[in-house]
């Protein structure tokens, strides 16, 4: 059993395991997990455990990776509730509001991609249902246009935010707050934390 | 005689492997790497299996199965990977 090629083959297993541990992006880690599974199957087969190698290839490489890819894809997401017609409630800003929302959403996407998150938009017909969805924990955050009177109060500066994004999850709020304060892009929307009292 | 022939097959397979895997390290596009990798990997693996077949002809059903699955799967895999990765490129 003590062949000279045995040691380098077995040494491949901790090597790939270390590479897997040091991955940051979850999807890259999944691919490296596939490589680890292939190497592990090789090691088991070389050591004489054919059944273990087969199980590793079938379950560890195929099933686990597919299930994990689906799980990571559905969990690393920020669900943002928006009004179905964001311009309908505000009166005369309908021309300028929509591009500003689009720009804000684009900024948000680029910020979230840095943290390997996706942005998923959920449409709601009116403001009341939007807030109810946030309370019911259906969405992680909502993006609402500011009320008309508060819009009047701020002297209409060109880059003053007319959208308010309310975030339910404290960690997400911290991440976005620090990213927004450090980056140079003008925030076209205000960030607010959702204070939950009823539980 | 047969033995040296099988070693020649192993040698050709290993040369193909190194030749196909080396472009992976460069900064070329995914499709270029995929082309060299799928061609050289499949040919090298087939050559190694033929070498094994010459060495131990007793296990021919197994090695024939390996040969067939290698040829079919690697071609299909090449197409699937190229399709998936190029669709992403056009989307960006």
């Amino acid at each position, binding site marked *: 059993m003590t062949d000279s090629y045995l040691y380098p083959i077995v040494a491949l297993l901790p090597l790939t395991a270390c590479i897997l541990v040091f991955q940051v992006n979850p*999807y890259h880690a999944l691919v490296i997990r596939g490589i680890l599974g292939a190497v592990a199957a090789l090691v088991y087969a070389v050591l004489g455990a054919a059944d273990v190698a087969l199980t590793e290839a079938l379950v560890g490489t195929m099933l686990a990776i597919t299930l994990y890819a689906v799980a990571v894809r559905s969990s690393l997401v920020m669900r943002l509730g928006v009004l179905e017609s964001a311009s309908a409630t505000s009166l005369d800003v309908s021309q300028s509001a929509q591009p500003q929302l689009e720009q804000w959403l684009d900024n948000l996407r680029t910020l979230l991609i840095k943290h390997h998150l996706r942005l998923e938009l959920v449409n709601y017909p009116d403001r009341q249902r939007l807030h109810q969805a946030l309370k019911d924990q259906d969405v992680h955050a909502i993006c609402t246009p500011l009320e008309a009177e508060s819009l009047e109060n701020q002297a209409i500066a060109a880059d003053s935010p007319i959208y308010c994004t309310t975030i339910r999850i404290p960690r997400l709020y911290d991440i976005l707050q620090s990213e927004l304060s450090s980056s140079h892009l003008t925030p076209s929307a205000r960030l607010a934390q959702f204070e939950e009292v009823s539980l | 005689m047969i033995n040296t022939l099988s070693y020649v097959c192993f040698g050709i397979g290993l040369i193909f492997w190194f030749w196909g895997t080396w472009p992976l390290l460069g900064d070329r596009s995914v499709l270029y790497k995929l082309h060299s990798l799928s061609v050289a990997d499949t040919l090298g693996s087939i050559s190694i299996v033929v070498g094994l077949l010459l060495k131990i002809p007793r296990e021919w059903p*197994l090695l024939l199965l390996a040969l067939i699955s290698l040829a079919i799967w690697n071609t299909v895999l090449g197409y699937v990977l190229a399709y998936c990765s190029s669709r992403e490129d056009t989307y960006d």
Partner: protein
Amino acid sequence: MNVILIAMILALLIPIYEACQDEDIWQKMLAFASVATKTSMMILVVSVLRDDWMIGVVGVIILSVGNAALMLLAHILKRLNQL
């Protein structure tokens, strides 16, 4: 035969290094494809070397299953980038 297996291990190290160093996900998938083929070929060589029929069968099954896993993962990643 031992020399051949050592050379195969060296060939296996190239895609592993590539997967470790490259940032693009598709390059990593290519490295994964290369590793999957190479490991199953090594299992086949070892099975013939030891004259062990059982390991050989496992090697052939891994050869086909590893590629199937790769295609599944590639399709999931493609769907991921489209959304």
